[in-house]
């Protein structure tokens, strides 16, 4: 079997709060393979956010080893993490996190800017990604001119434009109504069906039910 895209080996993340050490993640091991659609499920305070930060290479574990697409994250400096994020991960956030006063096209093209892709190629690829998500007629709209569902689709386009090994979605339906949320989930499903690896982080069991595998977190530990 090929190496897993995500491989967490006895990972802990401990926060120092004054003299207290608070473990947000405690001895977690997890493997996610190419083509999987994994939901990480847990109530608030279960360590979901910490998990998301670690998986997304925004934070480093205090103990244990994390390998993302074959790269040992612990050995990387901040620039190395940035490069790994840029090449390997596409983020979809709860609050969309689009750049304000920036068109959908430029928003989607931003990850390519930091990969050093030329301006003309950025435009072509960003436009293609937006068209794939049915936003071909919205490419010059700014986030404030788009509905929540449209904004989240722009964010998904931005996550896809670099053709990353992993899509990391943090409560992607949290700010959307049920109907629009279902559309976004259907979209993630479609992407997974096309072979994309997706890790979904949520507190909502209904949303998690859409995934092919569920990982339950409680008090910083994997319980199921």
């Amino acid at each position, binding site marked *: 079997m090929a190496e897993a895209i995500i491989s967490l080996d006895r990972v802990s993340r401990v926060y120092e709060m004054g003299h207290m050490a608070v473990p947000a993640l405690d001895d977690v091991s997890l493997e996610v393979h190419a083509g999987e659609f994994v939901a990480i499920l847990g109530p608030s305070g279960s360590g979901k956010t910490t998990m998301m930060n670690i998986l997304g290479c925004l934070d480093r574990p205090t103990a244990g080893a994390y390998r993302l697409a074959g790269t040992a994250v612990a050995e990387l400096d901040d620039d190395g993490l940035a*490069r790994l994020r840029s090449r390997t991960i596409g983020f979809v956030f709860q609050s969309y996190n689009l750049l304000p006063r920036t068109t959908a096209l430029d928003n989607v093209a931003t990850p390519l800017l930091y990969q050093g892709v030329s301006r003309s190629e950025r435009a072509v690829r960003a436009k293609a990604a937006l068209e794939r998500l049915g936003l071909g007629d919205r490419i010059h709209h700014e986030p404030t001119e788009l509905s929540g569902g449209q904004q989240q689709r722009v964010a998904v386009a931005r996550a896809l434009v670099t053709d990353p090994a992993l899509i990391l979605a943090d409560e992607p339906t949290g700010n959307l109504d049920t109907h629009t949320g279902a559309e976004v989930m259907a979209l993630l499903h479609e992407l997974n069906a096309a072979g994309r690896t997706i890790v979904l982080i949520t507190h909502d069991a209904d949303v998690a039910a859409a995934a092919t595998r569920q990982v339950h977190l409680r008090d910083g530990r994997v319980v199921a």
Partner: protein
Amino acid sequence: MSLFELLRLALSRLRTSRLRAALTMLGVIIGVASVVALVSVGQGTTSSITNRLAGLGTNLLTISPIGGGGASSKLTLDDAGAIARLASIGGVAPEISKSLTVSAGNTNTTTTVVGTTPAYPTVRAYEVWQGTFLTDASVERDLRVAVLGATAATNLGLTASDLGTQISVGGLPFRVIGILQAKGGSGFQNPDDQVIVPIGAIQKYFVAGDTVRTIGVSVSDPAQMTAASSAITSLLRDRHDLAPTDTADFNVFNQTQLLAAASSITATLTLLLGGIASISLIVGGIGIMNIMLVSVRERTREIGIRKAVGARGSDILAQFLVEALTLSLLGGLIGIVVGLAVSALIGQLAGWGFTFNPATVAIAVLFSLAVGVVFGVWPARQAARLDPISALRYE
């Protein structure tokens, strides 16, 4: 990221907040404009003063009696003759003058009538415009001939075609033989408002005695100015029977020294003006830093997003630094244009004209670049160091 990409990013950012960008730049605009304008005013003053002093004759030594002219004067025509025999003296022009009414036909004017010798134009740096100056022959024979200064000629209504006409000087008829080129420059004494006659003539008809108001001496070699000056001093002390302890009853005035002193004063003045103006440039720079810090705070979330999608700290640093530099450079360029316009206007009003000084402009550009870097680096570093996790959660 290439500089071009950074510039595009910065410009599109500035476009979205035009008023803020304009107000931020205003500080730099005012700073750079005042540096450019004040330095140019300083240089204009310098060249204007230098030109005016040079217009008085560069190799000029002026000997004047202490205690003013008139009765107390101890300088005589014989003194002038003795000076003329010294080495390295180019020309000696003793002057006796009196304010008289001069008339041509029905036109009257009151002007200074100067009695002098043919060396006068060389010593005082005049050019003859029409006709001739006093000749040796006319001075020897005390002929009643007159050379008009440009202003005096205009006041009398005389032009080139009027050479040879009779004018009345102090009631006596004189023949006009020449008109001088205008020197320009106005001060407490207009150098073009005078009528020049042979020194013998003024002694004979208007001023008794052979005491002179001043003796102008031109030195043939500018390097010999000091030597000539001390030679004249000792000659005159000797002729006036002064003991070594006596104070001199005359003064030898060296034009070159005045020129040097004036130049050094105006150079200091220029430096002072530039220094004061650059304080406002620093204030403008602090304005940029202030706005950039606010901007980093406001755009914390944007920075978090950019980092999440792959921006390195150095990318963020470059983005904010280029933004600050764009503000300061754009402000600097506008400031240069404004400064040049203001200095052209002042030059026009003050009458020394406008000289474009590329060095001032280059320094202003460098200065505004430096302002951008110095006051932009700190906010940019703050932006680059933001932790992406907390930046993404920042509301």
